[in-house]
């Protein structure tokens, strides 16, 4: 465990309940994440994992009916997704959106500069930004022809996920929620994406990995593993819990609860 667990949590989710179209998806969910931590959230299909990610990032379709989310000491429930992003919350998507006609590089620069100006810092011109980007590309072993392509346009599954990690690297969020970043990846792509995440993880940020399978956790070592079921965290453990899940499936936990 890299963090000392001292100080305040980066994000504190307190008794959160949410609905979409009158259906309750999350029920009384409580979780604290401290800087420097990596949390994995696992669970069967339909347990509410992806909803949890979207609610943290502020998806407008979900209504929070109970509880709250405090991020860096501020209540973010009333903040729009873009405001949350500027506070330092990032979500990596399971199905990243394709934006034809917009290059990755101009999109990244727009996102970066929007955040810069929100922080009252100087925006980077295309040349300065390119320098900044080249370092990130090198770190993530992404070739620079990635930048001239339209955002996710015609990207393979693996390329899309690498692009999510590149966006994360550029935006340097305090909290990254990666929703099924491993889905649809072959072993090589999984390794590359995981290495990227490991390079980006540090003592000041935190990562929540949402995943179906234990195999991602062979590459990224979580400090905590949580199991979700019916909209709540029903068990929390460490890496060993993930291995147990891999061997025995989810049923035994669901029986326990």
């Amino acid at each position: 465990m890299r963090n000392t667990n001292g100080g305040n949590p980066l994000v504190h989710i307190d008794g959160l309940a949410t609905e979409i179209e009158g259906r309750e998806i999350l029920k009384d969910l409580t979780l604290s994440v401290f800087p420097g931590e990596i949390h994995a959230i696992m669970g069967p299909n339909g347990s509410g994992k992806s909803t949890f990610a979207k609610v943290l990032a502020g998806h407008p379709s979900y209504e929070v009916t109970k509880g709250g989310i405090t991020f860096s000491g501020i209540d973010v429930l009333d903040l729009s997704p873009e405001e949350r992003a500027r506070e330092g919350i990032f979500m990596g998507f399971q199905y990243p959106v394709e934006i034809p006609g917009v290059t990755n590089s101009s999109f990244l620069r727009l996102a970066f500069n929007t955040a810069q100006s929100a922080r009252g810092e100087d925006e980077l011109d295309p040349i300065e930004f390119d320098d900044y980007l080249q370092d990130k590309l090198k770190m993530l072993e992404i070739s620079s022809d990635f930048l001239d392509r339209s955002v996710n346009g015609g990207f393979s599954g693996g390329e899309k996920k690498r692009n999510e990690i590149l966006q994360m690297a550029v935006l340097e969020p305090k909290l990254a929620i990666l929703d099924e970043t491993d889905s649809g990846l072959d072993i090589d792509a999984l390794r590359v994406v995981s290495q990227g995440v490991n390079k980006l993880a540090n003592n000041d940020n935190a990562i929540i990995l949402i995943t179906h399978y234990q195999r991602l956790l062979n590459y990224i070592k979580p400090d905590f593993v949580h199991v979700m079921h019916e909209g709540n965290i029903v068990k929390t453990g460490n890496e060993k819990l993930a291995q147990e899940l891999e061997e025995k499936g989810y049923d035994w936990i669901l029986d326990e609860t």
Partner: protein
Amino acid sequence: MHKEFFQGLSNDNTLEFSQTEWLKLIREEANQRVIDLPVPSAKDEQWRFTDLKKIYQKQFRSAGKHTLNYKDVEKSILLESGYQLVFVDGLFSKQFSRLPEPNSGVFLGGLQSALVNHPEEIQATLISTNNEKNNFFASLNTSYLRDVAVLHLAPDTSLEKPIHLLNISTGENTCVNPRVFFKIGAGSSVKVLEEYVSIGGKESLTNIVSDIYLGQSAKFSHYRVQREDVSSFNIAHSSVDLQKNSNYQFCTISTGASISRQDVEVVQSGEGTTCGFEGLAFLQGRQVCDLHSKIIHGKPQGTSKQVYKTIIGDRAKAVFNGQIFVSSEGHLSSAAQSNKNLLLTKNGRVDTKPQLEIYADDVKCAHGATVGQLNDDEMFYLQTRGIPKDVARKILIYGFAAEVIENLGLESLIVSLRNEILKLTGSPVSL
């Protein structure tokens, strides 16, 4: 009676071809039809969704002499074009055109020289369309015919560089009747940008008839861009005939005109032909854009793929009527059609009617139409990158249009349309 709108037009009898007997005859016949035929109205099934009252209320006149110089025209010329054929207010302009050498296998020019170079073909095509189209606007075109844009490509002649057919409207309240005749010889290939622009033109009616013929194994990439002044009216009829194994790739882009209506009929009259049909209309204010297309699979093993997109803002309206017709001889045809409409406002309107009519076995056909707003999940994706909602919206509208534009394959056309769409959407990012 709605026929006052063209009563102010005059037949220009000073033109050199005016005394050509057969032409005189077809013009007179057409003139009679214009008198006899009712003007299209909302009562006609084919015109149900497009009200032409705004046209009928006007009093158009024939265009006079234009005052353009090359500087005005130059900026509208496609940079990479090899040859350019420029028409101003419906008349061929030698001054602004750049034409191939005689006897090069490529004929490009106006009616006068076409009558010298390809008299039989010109006569045949003008007579046959004239007879076939019991149609008010097509008859109006023939009746007031002043010129024809002709491209005639001999067999096995391929042009690397695209041809730009530029039609410029300069008048106010004028009615011009451009005519287009493209004949692509067997085994030949060419790219043509057919464009309609206004340089000073306002509240004018451009009424076009086109006949396009592809010989065996010919390949034709045809881009049609209509960006006339938003006070103008643009009506177009085109028929395309595809001989065996020919390949016709059509893309139509509309951003201009107050009312624009395009009827395109593609007939696969030989085996194994290919037709690609793409389109984009970007509409604002009270613009109305109506595309009626009919692709006829008349012989075995033809394929067609149609993708037509519209973006509707303000109180604008898009109409799509797309028919795929597979005749009893059209075995092993494959047809795909999709119409996607992005409706940005609650006062905008879309009428879409995709139709499949199949009389053959062993065919693969699919069609679909969607009318929608911007997708919440896509907006959310951009917002989670810190991009404000209103900017995210602009980017996604731009992206919707860009998908058509970026695939055009003519670099300077892409750049100019990209800039136009960027201006229309306000997107801060592009390619």
